[in-house]
């Protein structure tokens, strides 16, 4: 079930109504053209040769047999195609920053020597069909000098650990300095001195692949000096800019087309090496090249959520007031720094004395990068289990403990609005928290034990710059041009609804043009939960501009059109803007076989005004489902002796099947804080942030043992019960 509680909001005409996706018919009837569906005359098929070793120097490469194979039209290798993939490794993991990319110390190329993980790319071929390309790749002879490798982040920082780079395994920060990321607020030692109790614990979390259905693919087509790139990118504007920079082109020389795509979850931000490899092959061959990764290549060759180790130390008074918080963490980044390696969560608390030190560490595992709320779910799992554990040890209801200690607006740091208290209290009531939780964890008699857990979160909902164009013709039909694509949340529909509302016309009267950088203006892209609030604001402003013109000149007649456009730079007037959420879970753990079954799941969110209830609800559900999978199933195991990955793919990683997915009740408290389009905030990532934490707490409440390693698999539960 789901429910929307609209606090003081006037109902609107289009916004707030359950609305089917505007491209639903095309998608379900097979008319939608995904990247892999395009066929261009003379198109070749690419295939990448990848490293079978976790760490090796390439002594020599011989492509003569591959080149001699009939049908092969281009072979490129680390020797003859040295293209820097700027977004593939960035100092500090700063993805959207050109100067940082330019100054990056450990650059990643489309092909690398040495190769630094199983799946690192070495060479690629283009041939007349896929099978020939595969055969050609198998004919490339590479001489490897195997090097020592390291898999675990803490181990990688030991003095005698194999070095992924000559400087060592601690990743450089955005300044290029080899130092951990440190946040030191207040006086943490004084805070520990004030404490009546100090608790310390180690948590760890696993590698989670984004597991989007559509693997990485790219179709490159050169038209003279212009590159047309069909690619499932979560941000066509940034993909264009990054691709142009990496290939030494101007932005206008690259056209990125992403009309339909099969999910991303952070796996398809910016440009990817497949884009650059396809473009390089195509330029050599002189014809279009389609490159599609296999599932295994996609799993190992792209990226997933970074595994972490988190050491916590919490100081607390008898009455439950937290006086100091400390976390020393390690994030396994693989051999390239694609993202920060952040471990968030402590910042959701108001404690004035907080010390956080995170070491992002190079390893010879698959690369880590963006995954829906990149820094949050694993961090919230750690800190929320830690705090839940402290609360129970002090005999305090964790909800009360949270209400006492969670971050609140201050005079120095005001919020645009703050609804955590309402979100939590609404969840407490709907879920019947007091009846479901065990005051004494693990107190159910018998082997089948029930318990309840809770977690809360706040997540950025800032506003920023994008562009939009709206046109009206003499038939009073509107066309909206926005550089969005749809990775699942329904951005095309959302943009159309916002335009329709702002223009005072039905959605059916607004045609949306999307997914093509030659036809659409700049948009921030479908990452960071930003499209609705950033591009949405541009749509509102463009519509307002058009309305002013209509008021001024009247509706166009004949062949005339009127065009409104906007590139706003909105602010929140120095206030912090956040979305809020609380999740409550009841689980049943069978301690004989270690299984965890979810009996009830209640998610309460405040994401401002909801534009499309249908897709907003599904975003929370989908994110929660991913969070459940992360909590109790998914991981990427490596063989410690060979450095080979053992569990890539849907079968091995144990994703939830439909039969595993529980009912998830989603409730929204809707408010308008005066910022964002019609008061909308973020929703896409928020649901995953707190799901693993809430499940971990529920399992602990059921069995009376704290599970400190995620995923909480059956062997770990049985180990804890033994």
């Amino acid at each position, binding site marked *: 079930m789901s429910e929307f509680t609209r606090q003081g909001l006037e109902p609107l005409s289009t916004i707030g109504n359950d609305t089917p996706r505007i491209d639903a018919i095309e998608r379900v009837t097979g008319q939608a053209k995904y990247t892999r569906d395009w066929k261009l005359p003379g198109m070749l098929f690419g295939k990448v040769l990848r490293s079978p070793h976790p760490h090796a120097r390439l002594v020599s490469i011989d492509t003569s047999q591959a080149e001699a194979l009939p049908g092969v039209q281009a072979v490129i290798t680390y020797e003859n195609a040295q293209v820097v993939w700027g977004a593939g490794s960035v100092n500090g993991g700063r993805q959207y920053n050109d100067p940082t990319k330019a100054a990056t110390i450990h650059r990643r190329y489309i092909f690398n020597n040495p190769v630094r993980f199983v799946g690192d790319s070495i060479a690629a071929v283009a041939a007349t069909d*896929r*099978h020939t390309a*595969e*055969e050609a790749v198998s004919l490339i002879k590479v001489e490897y000098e195997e090097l020592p490798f390291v898999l675990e982040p803490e181990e990688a920082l030991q003095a005698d650990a194999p070095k992924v780079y000559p400087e060592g395994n601690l990743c450089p920060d955005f300044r290029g300095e080899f130092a951990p990321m440190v946040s030191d607020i207040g006086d943490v030692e004084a805070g520990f001195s004030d404490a009546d109790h100090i608790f310390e614990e180690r948590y760890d979390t696993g590698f989670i692949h984004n597991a989007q259905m559509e693997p990485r693919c790219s179709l490159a087509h050169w038209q003279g000096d212009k590159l047309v790139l069909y690619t499932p990118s979560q941000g066509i504007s940034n993909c264009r800019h990054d691709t142009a920079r990496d290939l030494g082109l101007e932005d206008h020389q690259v056209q990125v087309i992403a009309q339909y795509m099969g999910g991303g979850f952070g796996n398809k931000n910016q440009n990817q090496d497949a884009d650059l490899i396809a473009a390089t092959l195509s330029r050599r061959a002189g014809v279009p090249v389609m490159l599609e990764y296999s599932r295994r290549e996609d799993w190992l060759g792209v990226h997933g959520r970074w595994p972490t180790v988190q050491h916590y130390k919490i100081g607390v008074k008898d009455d439950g007031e937290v006086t100091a918080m400390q976390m020393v963490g390690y994030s396994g980044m693989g051999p390239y720094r694609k993202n920060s390696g952040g471990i968030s969560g402590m910042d959701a608390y108001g404690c004035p004395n907080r010390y956080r030190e995170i070491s992002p560490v190079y390893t010879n595992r698959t690369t880590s990068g963006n995954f829906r709320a990149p820094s949050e779910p694993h961090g919230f799992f750690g800190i929320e289990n830690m705090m839940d554990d402290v609360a129970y040890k002090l005999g305090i209801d964790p909800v009360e403990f949270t209400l006492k200690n969670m971050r609140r607006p201050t005079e120095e740091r005001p919020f645009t609005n703050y609804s955590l208290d309402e979100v939590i209290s609404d969840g407490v009531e709907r879920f019947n928290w007091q009846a479901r939780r065990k005051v004494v964890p693990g107190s159910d008699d018998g*082997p089948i034990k029930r318990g309840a857990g809770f977690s809360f979160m706040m997540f950025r909902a800032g506003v920023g710059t994008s562009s939009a164009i709206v046109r009206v013709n003499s038939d009073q039909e509107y066309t909206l041009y926005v550089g969005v694509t749809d990775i699942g949340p329904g951005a095309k529909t959302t943009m159309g609804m916002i335009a329709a509302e702002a223009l005072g016309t039905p959605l059916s009267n607004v045609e949306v043009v999307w997914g093509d950088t030659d036809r659409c203006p700049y948009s921030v892209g479908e990452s960071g939960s930003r499209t609705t609030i950033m591009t949405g604001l541009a749509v509102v402003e463009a519509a307002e501009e058009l309305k002013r013109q209509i008021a001024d000149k009247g509706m166009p007649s004949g062949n005339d059109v009127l065009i409104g456009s906007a590139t706003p730079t909105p602010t929140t007037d120095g206030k912090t803007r956040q979305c809020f959420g609380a999740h409550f879970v009841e689980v049943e753990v*069978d301690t*004989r*076989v*270690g*299984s965890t079954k979810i009996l009830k799941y209640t998610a309460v969110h405040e994401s401002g005004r909801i534009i499309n209830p249908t897709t907003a609800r599904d975003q929370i559900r989908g994110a929660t489902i991913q969070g459940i999978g992360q909590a109790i*199933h998914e991981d990427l*195991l*490596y*063989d*410690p*002796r*060979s450095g*080979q*990955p*053992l*569990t890539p793919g849907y*079968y*091995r990683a*144990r994703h*939830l*099947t*439909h*039969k*595993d997915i529980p009912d998830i009740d989603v409730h929204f408290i809707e408010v308008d804080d005066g910022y964002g389009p019609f008061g909308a905030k973020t929703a896409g990532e928020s649901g995953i942030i707190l799901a693993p934490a809430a499940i971990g707490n529920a399992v602990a409440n059921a069995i009376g043992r704290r599970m400190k390693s995620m995923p909480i*698999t*059956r*062997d770990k539960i*049985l*180990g804890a*019960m*033994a």
Partner: protein
Amino acid sequence: MKTLTNVNVTSFGEAASASRTARQQGSVPAFSGGGSDLLQQLKDGTDNADVIVNLRSVADGRTIQSDGSGFAIGGLVTLTELAEDPSVMTGMSAIAQAAASVGTPQIRNVGTLAGNVTQRPWCWYYRNGFNCFKAGGDECFSLNGENGQHAIFGGGPSFIVHPSDVAPALVAFDAIFQVTGPTGSREVSAEEFFVLPATDPSRENSLNEDELLTGVRIPSVSANTVSTYYKVMDREAWTHAEVGVATVIQRDGNAAQNAKVVLAGVAPIPWRVRAVEDFLAGKQINAAVAREAGEIGIEDALPLSKNAHKLPMTSAAIEAAVLSLAAG
């Protein structure tokens, strides 16, 4: 992808001959019933067959026949058919339940009895292309590696677990395995059919080159026989057994006679726990007896470094399986 040659055959004998002919010509043949797993192995490179002997054109081996006492089940009967056959569901529910628990509906719709029983191990080392015993090498990488899913009984020198759910249920019903080769057919008992790694670590059964499993025969099922297959899975579908327990008893009142208890997912072959079978003889089935059966069931277990959780799991599964057969 390499070129594959497809050979359609119309009988099991012809299939065996086609396999032999291909082998004599220097090819690597493989029998394909449903072909779902074979296709993946070919793609992954863990099976290097280049001649596919297609059994879909074979008319035999597709029926489940009962003579009132015993059963004959064709090797090409699909898992869906096995799971939904009324006579199997009533007379040998452990077999029906085991078949119904395999994989996904899509796999069960094409997967066959013979293919399920003779499928290669799902060990992540073998399936990821390690040159282990099962791939013709001379090492089991799980021993000093990730062995959370590996054998607690009967292991060494290979520690794979037998992946079939149906096989333990067949063993529990004293199935006779029918084998056809280029020179004729033979029948073998379960003891002869499944091969421990101590005997030959490269294979899981005694099928010789060019031989295939064509069906099974269940000699007799008495009217007072009750059975169950209890499977512990780490998710609700598309996964192999962490442990499975096929239990068959002849129930006299509430007393167990001639108990058979055979485990899946914990040993390199379907694993009979004779100590539990002996313990159950003549016992009234109740919670205490079932619990003790579970405890006895793991007395001989030898866990590796990371699979000790399979002991309590196996105990619990045996207990649940036995208790579910109590009268009333």
